[in-house]
């Protein structure tokens, strides 16, 4: 999931010009989990903006709980059909979701003016109803087979691939003494699994071209093609 956090209300208000009519859109999946743009927060945002003198023409959070705003066909249907009248009155859309959702609203409204209501902060695991933690950096070249499933690109502050730096103390990272050293975590896990030999092999430098932006994925039921500055890679899911 994409973790998001609402921007300060005054920052959002400052985006909106005097007299601008705003339609607020939330997301029923990730932003709902983050309490940054679910049904309750979206309704509340409409009220908070109104209280501050912003003219809000309507709001919606497309789909049932679990539906992602970034699913374009659904969002388009909701905004263009269900909310067509209110959307037509809007000068702009305040989107309470990640950056993908913001772009989905641009697509779903035929290029409408958008304002981001959230900062998109990371891709994370919903560990509990109140905790979202980052375990993957979306780097495009997964190395976690060699680390027992724990990502050094994410859990190590320096993104080291061949073991720890010398900075950790008592198992804590040199950057933050409250946080565990990613490499000590990897070591302890592999030791417990009896697989420490996985750490012996040299890990070559990352191909950062796979981490270039923007990237794209074309999928069918039988194969997928990943495009980045590293080129196109097509993989079959059939053999």
């Amino acid at each position, binding site marked *: 999931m994409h973790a998001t956090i609402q921007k300060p209300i005054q920052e959002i208000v400052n985006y909106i010009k005097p007299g601008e009519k705003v339609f607020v859109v939330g997301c029923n999946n990730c932003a709902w989990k983050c309490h940054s743009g679910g049904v309750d927060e979206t309704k509340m945002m409409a009220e908070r903006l109104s209280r501050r003198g912003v003219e809000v023409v309507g709001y919606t959070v497309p789909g049932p709980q679990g539906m992602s705003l970034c699913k374009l066909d659904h969002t388009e249907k909701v905004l263009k059909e269900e909310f067509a009248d209110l959307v037509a009155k809007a000068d702009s859309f305040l989107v309470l979701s990640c950056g993908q959702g913001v772009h989905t609203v641009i697509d779903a409204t035929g290029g409408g003016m958008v304002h981001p209501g959230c900062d998109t902060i990371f891709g994370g695991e919903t560990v509990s109803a109140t905790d979202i933690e980052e375990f993957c950096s979306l780097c495009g070249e997964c190395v976690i087979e060699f680390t027992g499933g724990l990502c050094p690109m994410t859990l190590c*502050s*320096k*993104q*080291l*691939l*061949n*073991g*720890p*730096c*010398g*900075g*950790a*103390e*008592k*198992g804590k990272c*040199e*950057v*933050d003494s409250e946080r565990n050293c990613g*490499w*000590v975590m990897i*070591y302890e896990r592999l030791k417990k699994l009896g697989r420490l030999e996985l*750490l*012996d092999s*040299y*890990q*070559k*430098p*990352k191909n*950062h071209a796979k981490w270039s932006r923007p990237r794209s994925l074309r999928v069918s039921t039988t194969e997928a093609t990943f495009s980045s500055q590293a080129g196109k890679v097509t993989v079959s899911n059939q053999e």
Partner: protein
Amino acid sequence: MKLTELFDKGEFVVTGEIGPIKGAINRDKSIHPTCAKEARTLHGHVHAVNVTDNQSAVMRLGSLAASVALKQQGIEPVYQLTCRDRNRIALQSDLLTAYSLGIDNVLLLTGDHIQLGDHKEAKPVFDLDSVQLLSMAMGLRNGHDITGHPIENPPDMAYGAVVNPNFEPLELQLLKMRKKIDAGAEFFQTQAVYDLEVFETFMNEAVKLGVPVQVGLVVLKSPQMGRFMNANVSGITVPSSWIEEIGSVDKDDRKKKAAEMMGNFLRQVKPMVQGVHLMPLGWADVVPSILETAEISIQ
């Protein structure tokens, strides 16, 4: 002069360390930056002087410029190069530049994280880790860049690396040390150590790897510094006995006391190692007495 030649001859290799100034070198050549003055104090007592690379992630004069300045004064530099601020293009280019400007020794490190320094909002690079950096540097020596393209006039410098004997679990730090050796590390300088037992445990394992090790010593100047390092400097632990001992004398007598404490410790660890790396942090003038107490003199 490559330090590896000294290790090969069986010499006990002594290096010091200076941190480049926060500022530029004056164009009036009669005005020397403080770091050059420190290096001159060390000269004659050490084989070479490490020049740190924006240490603790605090922006300063470049390590290469300061290294070249020392070389011009007849002081052998160990040019430190970190992965923090440079991608693989810049790292390789800087290695070629260093050799072209007369550098013979490079210490290749990961580098302290930006969050420890004075430019916390900068983008951390860490394109490579120190093992990959060593491997890439060896590639340059063997005539090709990291992509395999041949290079003209390959550089020939000695490649050093660092290791932290205080690291827990030690096995994990030794694993990294082995990888550095496999990648091309020819000598090691350790993180500062103060605990004889910890260092002995480390050396019992490190000696099996067959690569020269210089014990790293940071001169403890005051009890405040000891407490500060424990709270703020990653990877170093100053035992309370050291803090009490340096605090047991008046401020005026601390240089003498520090030389005695560091010298005695060095005399004890000397048989275990192939050299010492002294980090005087501004107290370059105590280095001669540390070495004298430890009964070490360079050829």
